[in-house]
């Protein structure tokens, strides 16, 4: 975001380029929130990260990266009941974890406004499923708002707090990754005075106690409130009917898909049909739909995933006795991201209007070409300790790409940066679903298939999220499994939020409440627990081998900080001390004469800093360490069986220091 930090100081009349997630956070700030929390998750992370980063300069704002979504939403409820407007954010699958508090929220209602911002991930570019959380509202009854662009992301969030208080519901704000990570122009509004934000919890047994008939009474109350909200939605500013000319065709859409639809109609040059833009997609008002259906005999619903709107609207159409045709999912696919291309093609088929030539030929050309291109998948950062962990595991279980050796050992995957270990060349996961499924499923397999050795993986943040009871369960029930905790001290994948393992902050300050993971594991009843540096790959691999021979639950902690954080901190600290950033004192190089291209570093370890080069004279291929990207972790040096990798040391720091002295 812009130079003078408009995020915290901007007022009406200011305009800036803002990320969708930041727009949501700004909307919450304009609404005067005092509480913001989340368990980090792409694509939603920046919603709370931007508030957390700026909180020193925002009066009376509490932020929290909670240990999981269940705690996070409960925290928001506690704040709301204390009279504090609260924002909770999570990714789509987070609501599975938080579904319990979400289920009770309508029973109890809110005191101060509560908004739950959910980053959904159609196409799953950063998730392990593409669930559409809107379906939850059919039983949680939480109203859903769906902004279509950056401006609405801010405006809707702000309005959601008023709506929340008026109808005593927590409001779901749905933002797919296309909106979370859209950056566009935002016109700011004014900020509220924040000096009066102060908690005051007032007992409210009528609403907060749920047992027996009290629960039934509260169930009745929220169904009534939902009916009141439906009445309000007949005329609200959130849902808009754009009248057509004489056309008997109508389109219904919401969120980012509405933006795809409007642009598609513009591309096709079609401006005469009636359009219903739904800003609030649950609950839907029968009366509003009745008004929209007037004069229409064909309606198409343009939406992503399985058809949440279609499901509701077909029911309402039946109740209203609408005789026209309703189309939807037969024109727009249910799986994968619904792109502007999908919307454009679907609309063209529905209207039986040809696609523009430039579009058609581009689609054809792309199809023809894509099969010929090598696929590219992401991998670990250069110097990432997870690469060393996977290398060690695969060595210990006898896997090799180069020698074509498969592995017998079952490896249970889990959620985090290390999930990338399921991709080539490691292929080191046999199943992957949700957080802490690795040990949960793996421990049961160990009980039923005694012939196989099982390794379950987990990261520190995921372990603290909900892994502790799983480990305790495995111990209590006699599982036989090796559990490797990849402890890199950060929730790295989502932008480096702290975990209980974080010992040193990015500015070098020691954490006052860092947890001793080894002691925690021991206290759960694990007698076999060792903590090692994964970058010592030989030692680590032999330790994995020995552990696999032991019975019961064994825990190895692969302890090494995320390399990105280590490098960043070094840069900050070195800058502070000497004003210099170049402190490299060693480099690694592959000696051409000794390298036999055995592929141990190039394919098995597969560090991207090791690249293929062509000798200018002979034209022969050779492996080379690219020093502009190498971070000097030294793992390749250790894996080379031919001592072809050499460490060259020199004291560049001292030389540079002398230079600056001379300059001064």
């Amino acid at each position, binding site marked *: 975001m812009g*130079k003078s930090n408009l995020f915290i100081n901007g007022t009406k009349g200011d305009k*800036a*380029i803002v990320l969708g997630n930041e727009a949501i956070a700004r909307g919450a700030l304009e609404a005067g929130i005092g509480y913001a929390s989340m368990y980090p998750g*792409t*694509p939603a992370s920046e919603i709370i990260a931007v508030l957390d980063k700026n909180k020193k300069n925002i009066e009376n704002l509490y932020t929290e990266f909670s240990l999981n979504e269940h705690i996070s939403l409960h925290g928001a409820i506690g704040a709301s009941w204390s009279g504090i407007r609260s924002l909770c954010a999570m990714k789509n699958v987070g609501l599975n974890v938080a579904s319990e508090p979400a289920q009770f929220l309508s029973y109890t209602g809110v005191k101060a406004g509560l908004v739950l911002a959910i980053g959904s991930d159609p196409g799953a*570019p*950063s998730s392990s499923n593409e669930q559409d959380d809107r379906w939850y509202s059919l039983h949680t009854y939480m109203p859903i708002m769906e902004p279509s*662009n950056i401006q609405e992301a801010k405006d809707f969030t702000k309005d959601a707090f008023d709506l929340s208080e008026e109808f005593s519901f927590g409001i779901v704000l749905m933002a797919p990754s*296309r*909106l979370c*990570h*859209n*950056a*566009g*122009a935002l016109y700011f509004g004014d900020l509220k005075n924040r000096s009066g934000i102060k908690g005051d919890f007032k007992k409210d047994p009528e609403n907060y106690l749920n047992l027996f008939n009290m629960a039934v009474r509260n169930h009745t109350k929220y169904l009534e409130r939902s009916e009141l909200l439906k009445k309000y939605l007949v005329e609200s500013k959130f849902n808009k009917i*754009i009248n057509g000319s004489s056309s008997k065709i109508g389109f219904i859409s919401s969120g*980012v898909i509405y*933006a795809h639809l*409007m*642009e*598609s109609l*513009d*591309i096709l040059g079609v*401006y005469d049909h009636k359009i219903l*833009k739904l800003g609030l997609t649950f609950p839907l008002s029968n009366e509003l739909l009745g008004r929209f259906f007037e004069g229409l005999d064909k309606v198409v619903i343009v939406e992503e995933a399985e058809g949440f709107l279609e499901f509701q609207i077909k029911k309402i159409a039946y109740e209203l006795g609408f005789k026209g045709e309703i189309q939807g999912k037969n024109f727009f696919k249910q799986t994968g991201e619904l792109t*502007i*291309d999908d919307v*454009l093609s679907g609309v063209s088929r529905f209207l039986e209007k040809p696609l523009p030539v*430039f*579009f058609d*030929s*581009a*689609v054809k*050309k*792309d199809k023809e*070409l894509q099969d*010929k291109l*090598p*696929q*590219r*998948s*992401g*991998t*670990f*950062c*250069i110097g990432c300790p997870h690469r060393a962990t996977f290398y060690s595991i695969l060595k210990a279980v006898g896997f090799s*790409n180069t020698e074509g050796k498969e592995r017998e050992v079952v490896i249970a995957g889990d959620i985090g*940066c290390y999930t990338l270990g399921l991709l*080539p*060349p490691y292929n080191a996961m046999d199943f992957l679903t949700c957080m802490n499924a690795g040990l949960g499923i793996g421990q049961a397999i160990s009980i039923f298939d005694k012939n196989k050795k099982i390794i379950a993986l987990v990261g520190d943040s995921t372990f603290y999220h909900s892994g502790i009871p799983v480990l305790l369960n495995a111990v209590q029930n006699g599982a036989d499994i090796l559990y490797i905790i990849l402890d890199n001290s950060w929730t*790295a994948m*989502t*932008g480096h939020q702290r975990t209980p393992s974080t010992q040193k902050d990015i500015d070098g300050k020691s954490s006052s409440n860092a947890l001793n993971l080894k002691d925690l594991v021991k206290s759960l009843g694990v007698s076999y627990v060792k903590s090692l540096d994964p970058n010592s790959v030989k030692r680590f691999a032999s330790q994995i081998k020995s552990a696999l021979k032991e019975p019961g639950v064994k825990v190895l902690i692969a302890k090494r900080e995320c390399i*990105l954080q280590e490098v960043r901190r070094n840069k900050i600290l070195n800058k502070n001390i000497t004003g210099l950033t170049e402190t490299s004192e060693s480099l690694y190089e592959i000696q051409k004469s000794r390298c036999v291209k055995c592929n141990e570093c190039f*394919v098995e370890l*597969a560090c*991207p800093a090791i690249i*293929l080069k062509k000798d200018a004279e002979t034209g022969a291929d050779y492996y080379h360490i690219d020093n*502009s*990207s190498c971070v000097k972790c030294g793992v390749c040096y250790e894996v080379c069986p031919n001592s072809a990798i050499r460490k060259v040391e020199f004291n560049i720091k001292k030389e540079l220091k002398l230079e600056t002295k001379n300059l001064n």
Partner: protein
Amino acid sequence: MKKFNTAIVGLGGQGIITMGTVMKNAALSSDLQDVSGSERRGGAQREGYVETFVKYIFYENESEMKDPRKSMHSPMIESGGADALISLEPLETLRGVRYINKNSIVIFNETPYIPITVRMGQTAYPEISFIFSELKKITNNIFSYDFDAISVENFSSLTQKNIIALGALFAKADIPIDVFVIENLLKEGKGAENNLKAFNLGLKL
């Protein structure tokens, strides 16, 4: 309404999102300008395909700006809808081919980053000549440079290649945004001196 769509593609960690952010910030000077465009971020993963879109919109007048049928813009560029495609990795240029049409300008970086499937010997990396000939089938406006080499040569680091490429884009494509607007933005940002130098190196290509 006039539009100018730019698709920027490449790999995670190459500075593509920064390029998009600089371009978008150049569209704030008038209310009649609008800008949209999403990013595809792959979490913290490196070396994966990343793309970002910059869609400039110029309204003719206020009534067009307020027309609900004209004022809502998708964050994505449709197939064939890009006026310019800029790619920081040769192979990824071909993955971005879907966005271009016969009038598009294409600028790509010549330094390849070898995908793991190629390392493992399962597939081959396409020759630069193949990339050229495939692009030629669509448009004649193709420019390629070794932005990695230019960056290393001038800054002893790869970090400026994105801004050099941005300069090249402004030199070759007819973008309806003044060059000095970008220069002013770079002047106000972090690393101003290097960024300005890099942008001007690109402009001269």
